[in-house]
């Protein structure tokens, strides 16, 4: 898996900006590179093994699951043709909507939607978003909608920035890490994916117990599985879309969905992400 990626990285790295660089890897019969951004199960080896097994079976070719520490790395690899598809956050999707095609959108509680939560350490007295002023704030990732964009947008609405609003802030590059940072008291407040917080409430209650929600955003389009626009019609890519949509009907797929606490996948439409895009534009305008 790694040599294949390395080889591809070397080949494509020399001509990253060229058209050939975004030519599909999926065109090659020998494999399929699928990128994953760190959600909450960033170290779940068993889940990754199940996903790899399921997709290998369905796509009838070797699947390489590519993980990187930041969203940006995955986005860059996707845009530079190093990945055939990736599960990315909705923020990068709206940023590169013209270059990326939606393959599938997860269904969480039977809807392709999720929320952003702003949480505080249980010992903190904050009751609303405005109460977290002056705290040390933990963001997840600069390209994360829930872990950065929504809070950034809230601050933009208040004509302020994280540097002015918070005493201090830092990125943890993982929603689970935001919970750890806030729970441990490293940060007093944090921005997090509501889906991750809810799932972790059930799976790691001891960790989540030390945090409390002070703000929930509106419902937003769930982070989608996307593919470079140029290869969206390739058989392997289509097979991936079909495999995701069929997941609830397959025993292994059901297991994967169970671990992810999702109900299945649906074919999304770009308009589901209008709200996200609107927020990104506002933030972008401020910067």
């Amino acid at each position, binding site marked *: 898996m790694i040599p294949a990626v390395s080889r591809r990285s070397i080949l494509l790295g020399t001509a990253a900006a060229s058209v050939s660089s975004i030519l599909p890897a999926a065109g090659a019969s020998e494999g399929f590179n699928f990128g994953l951004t760190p959600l909450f199960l960033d170290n779940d080896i068993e889940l990754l093994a199940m996903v790899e097994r399921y997709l290998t079976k369905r796509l009838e070719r070797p699947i390489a699951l590519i993980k990187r520490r930041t969203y940006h790395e995955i986005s860059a690899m996707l845009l530079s043709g190093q990945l055939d598809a990736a599960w990315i956050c909705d923020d990068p999707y709206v940023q590169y909507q013209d270059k990326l095609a939606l393959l599938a959108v997860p269904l969480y509680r039977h809807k392709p939607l999720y929320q952003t939560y702003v949480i505080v350490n249980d010992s903190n007295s904050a009751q609303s978003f405005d109460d977290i002023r002056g705290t*040390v704030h933990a963001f997840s990732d600069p390209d994360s909608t829930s872990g950065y964009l929504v809070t950034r947008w809230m601050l933009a609405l208040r004509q302020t920035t994280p540097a002015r609003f918070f005493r201090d802030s*830092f*990125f*943890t590059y993982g929603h689970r*890490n935001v919970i*750890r*940072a806030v729970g*441990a*008291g*490293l940060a007093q407040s944090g921005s997090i994916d509501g889906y991750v917080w809810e799932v972790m409430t059930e799976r790691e209650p001891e960790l989540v117990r030390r945090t409390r929600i002070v703000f929930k955003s509106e419902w937003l389009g769930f982070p989608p599985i996307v593919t470079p626009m140029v290869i969206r019609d390739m058989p392997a890519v289509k097979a991936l879309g079909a495999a995701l949509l069929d997941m609830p009907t397959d025993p292994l797929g059901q297991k994967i969905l169970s671990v992810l606490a999702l109900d299945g996948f649906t074919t999304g439409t770009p308009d589901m992400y209008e709200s996200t895009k609107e927020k990104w534009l506002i933030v972008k305008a401020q910067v």
Partner: protein
Amino acid sequence: MSRFPRLPAWPLTLKVPLLVAALMIAVAVIISQIVLTRLVKDQETNLTLLANAYLDGLSAAVLPAVIRGDVWETFDVLDRARGQYSGVEARYAIVELPDGSVLAASDPTSFPIHSPVPAELRSKFLNKDGLVINDDVGRAWLTRGLRAEGFSVGQILAEIDIASLLRIRSQVVLTLILVNGALAIAFSLIGYFAVKHMLQPLGVLSRYVERAREGRVEPIPERYRKKVASEFGQLFDRFNAMARAVSDRETLASHLAEQDKYAMLGRLASGMAHEVNNPLGGMMNAIDTIQSHSEDPEVLSKSLDFLKRGLAGIRNVVRAALVTYKGGSDTSLLTPTELDDLPFLVQHETGVRRLRLDWRNRVPEPLAIDGPAVRQITLNLLLNACAASPFGGAVAVEASRSDGALRIAVSDEGPGLPQDMAALLTSAGRIAAPSRESKGLGLWTTGNLIKRLNGVAAVERRETGTRIVVTLPVKTEAARHAA
């Protein structure tokens, strides 16, 4: 004055185990000190090694994040390192930036990011790489500088809980005390029983020596001889040799005493012959007178009276000699007459030396006591007094009864009884027989007789002469009848 007897006076069975216990305690204390000192040193060395391993791992992991000033990554490393290093129980770890502020700490609540490290806490740590150990509070403080390309980018400060090390020390101390205490007790007991066993032959020897002191000189039986070590075997052999020698000497002394008795008898016999011979001349004259003046009734009567007195005197002397040397008297009774015979036996001695014999027999009635033995005791003392007294001196004998005892006091005007001779009479224990050459067989026999009758003798030295008082217990009437 000490309440306890001096150590040398204590029995060996106590002294040896005590000495063993004292030595064990001394050895235990020294060994414990060595072990503990070594343990403390080893623990500190191990702690330093473990702490260095901990800091090596931590600093390598945290350095890239510190260079970037990445709060989360630094915290993540510190948080994950917690409990990952066996042997190092870090209570907290802080990454301090060169400006003295906290980049991140494993306990962010106590040490918030970008706040200064508390001065009081900072003073516990060295300003250079190293370890400070405080056993009293069970803590150690580590400092490790973080450098990149020769520049200091911060340092790690960590507080280590060393309670487990101190607990091990306490357990070692407890183990040492228990093991050494048990060993000291065990060795003391072994010492006690071993010494007791080793000294058993001494007990046997002591028993036989005590018997000898009581007059029963017996050799130690062979069965004891076989059981003991060679040193004690030799001792037993020497004791047995001594016992045999004493026994031989006793036999010899008895023979000598017997011979002495007959020698004395000879002397007495010659004295008696003299006593018999003296009246014989007068008696022959009386017979002649009777023959020549048989018609004169007055002369006849006087002569016959004279003859009667002379014969009575001879009869007394002969009877006394018979009673003394032929036996036949009742050994459970002493009649006053039996004592009163004695002056007749010494008539010759007193007569030759012109001694005045003051004889006072105040015993009013027969006494329940061995009569022949009492006569022998009194006669021997009387003869001794006569022999010791100067020519024309006075010898006094007084027999009386008081408080259930017969008291016989014999005094003379001699030069005084020598100490060793007096001891033959007065010694409470067994009396060694005098050697063949020495005198005093009569006194030795007398001393033995006194002891046989459970009596005591006292020798009083006066300005002139010696007074010997013998006190002999007399059985009560009831006891005598019962006997």
